[in-house]
């Protein structure tokens, strides 16, 4: 149940997300470049900040709504809003209508929700992107975030994109669909359970003998690579957009 495919648009909005903004801006840049290369204009409203999910999931509904409301007037043209995160996309797509139920901005919230796309789904199903691999042979594995799978219906799309790369061997995790233990503030509210989960995920990653762990959500990635680095693993983590861009762009 991925989003309804639409015709290729002339332009799109890009919602970078706060984690990408602060910690992984290269992932955002790569996502933008991939869209631009397909001949689509990318608009980046500078007034954007965060989708509001951290507060929404922490029992702070009012504060989540304040922050979400600040986004509603920034993406008003009837064009897709693309996010390099299944989790933040899920927040807008699934939870904005619920968060603004009975609110004066309900219609605006729904209008935005209906135009939200997760990046890999957008690249594959809307832009119908065809990738030409220019990189060295490499083995990678993939971690799909819970919200991209279960809120945005993004399951095979990222792997279909990776599999377009000729020189890349994708080795799937044994428990690919299982949560990595991030869960936003869960990681600090229940640190021991989170630690057990991320440790199991890292074991699974290492067992694939992949050189890189590719993920579509920077929350999961910060968690898993944070732990991989902690245990001094050789596996390097990076966002799908960055990985795809690295392997397919013409070296400058």
């Amino acid at each position, binding site marked *: 149940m991925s989003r309804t495919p639409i015709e290729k648009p002339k332009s799109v909005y890009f919602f*970078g997300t706060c984690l990408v*903004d602060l910690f992984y801006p290269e992932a955002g840049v790569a996502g933008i470049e991939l869209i631009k290369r397909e001949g689509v204009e990318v608009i980046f409203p500078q*007034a954007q900040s965060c989708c509001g999910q951290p507060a929404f999931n922490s029992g702070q509904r009012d*504060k989540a709504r304040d922050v979400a409301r600040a986004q509603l007037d920034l993406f008003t043209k009837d064009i897709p809003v693309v996010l390099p995160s299944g989790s933040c996309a899920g927040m807008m797509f699934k939870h904005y209508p619920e968060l603004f139920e009975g609110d004066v901005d309900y219609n605006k919230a729904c209008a935005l929700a209906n135009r939200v796309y997760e990046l890999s789904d957008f690249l594959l199903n809307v832009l119908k992107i065809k990738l030409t691999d220019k990189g060295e042979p490499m083995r990678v594995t993939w971690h799909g975030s819970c919200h991209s799978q279960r809120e945005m219906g993004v399951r095979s799309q990222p792997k279909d994109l990776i599999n377009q790369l000729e020189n890349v061997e994708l080795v799937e995790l044994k428990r690919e669909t299982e949560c990595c233990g991030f869960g936003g503030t869960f990681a600090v509210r229940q640190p021991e359970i989170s630690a057990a989960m991320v440790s199991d995920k890292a074991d699974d990653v290492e067992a694939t003998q992949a050189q890189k762990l590719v993920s579509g959500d920077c929350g999961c990635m910060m968690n898993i690579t944070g732990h991989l680095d902690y245990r001094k693993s050789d596996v390097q983590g990076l966002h799908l957009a960055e990985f795809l861009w690295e392997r397919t762009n013409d070296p400058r």
Partner: protein
Amino acid sequence: MTLVNGKDFKGRVHKALKDEELRANFRRAMDGLMGKRAMQFTDGDEWTRLRNLGESIKKRALSKLPELLERLEENCTKNGIKVHWARTVDEANSIILEILKSHDVKTVVKGKSMVSEEMELNHFLGDHGIRALEADLGEYIVQMAGQMPSHIVMPAIHMNKGQIAKLFQDNLPDTPYSEDAAELTAIARKELRREFMEAGAGLSGVNFAVAETGTLCLVENEGNGRMVTTVPPVHIAVTGIEKVVENLSDVPALLSLLTRSATGQPITTYFNMISSPRKEGEKDGPKEVHLVLLDNGRSKVYRDTETRDTLQCIRCGACMNHCPVYTRIGGHAYGGVYPGPIGKILTPQLEGLDEYPEHASASTLCNACVEVCPVKIPIAKMLVRLRDENSGNCPHGEHPLKGRGAKSSTIENAGWSGWAAMNASPATYKVATTAMSRIGNLLPQSAPMLKEWTSVRVKPKFAKKTLHQMAKEMGLKDE
């Protein structure tokens, strides 16, 4: 002594996570159960259709719960089943004690019943000189071990064959050590067979209580349910009020969803439909059948239209089988009667958030439970609701839950206010993020939240430039 306790969740979690044998037992068992369930629902369309039907059956029943309960009472009474209403656990226990005393019962044999766990019935009866013996194999094992069920369908799932073999050897006279599942079952069967014949009463739970016909449906695999409901002269069924369904024709869909979701079986070995005590001229069956309908907080859950969805549960346990948290910490760590995702939402609602303050936060909101729930309970949404209630900033004003504000913290609220102020104003956001990308990496590892984060991870590294800055440099339109 009570085994039910919501406090010190983190202490129990710590202990469970360190227990490698326990973790291996759960991992192995949950992997097996997930695999078996998946084999049952290979046709996605059929699964979608059936669970929509299951959801609508339960929603319809709940939408007229008071009426259906009265119809159930009426039709049970017509059938000769005596119906008792219990507002609280104490009332339910007293009702059962009175019934048992009036028949001078010394031993009651029990089929599996989570409601009786809620009532701590075994302890209660023990205190009054009546022996309650669990006859479901898993329950028999945990009772022998002096424990609570760790799973609502498979109570002894936390133990492996070696542990059970040792338990039997230590507790049953003349029992040699054997790890053979068939032999272990045979040992329990031999012990229990005698008890069924001698017990003064049998007690069971109920899976579906049919209002239309006054029928009590009982799903089981071992035949113990049939024994406890037919061999002793008195049968007492206990159930929560949410188990009522309207019509007999509602049962097949729910039964199919239940067994396939729970154990991956197309149907269980036994399906009992109890409609009356022994009638004139019949050769078997109990002389008396009682039904105890327990509220214990359910009507409070019911009166709020959002929390009401919790009562759709048919107790299949699929949510816990698929829960990455449950798989790690096991059932006992939760401290309540109902573990796993359903326990995380049900227990604080029944017992109070103040009694179970950590339950709502012990989830990544990964939605694995939501994905497999056969009656589509929005568990993640309910967890978020409970978090709102916990923080006390809850806009759901109509029916506050007991213990609202249990985790309310002035410091945390102030932190979120600051966060909201920063993220709701583009100017402030820009100043704050630019500052963070310059000096954020200087934060010490001991800073709040970073301390827990860095216990097993390296510090996240702020990038030198934000995406906002880079987008501007790329010349992207800002409109």
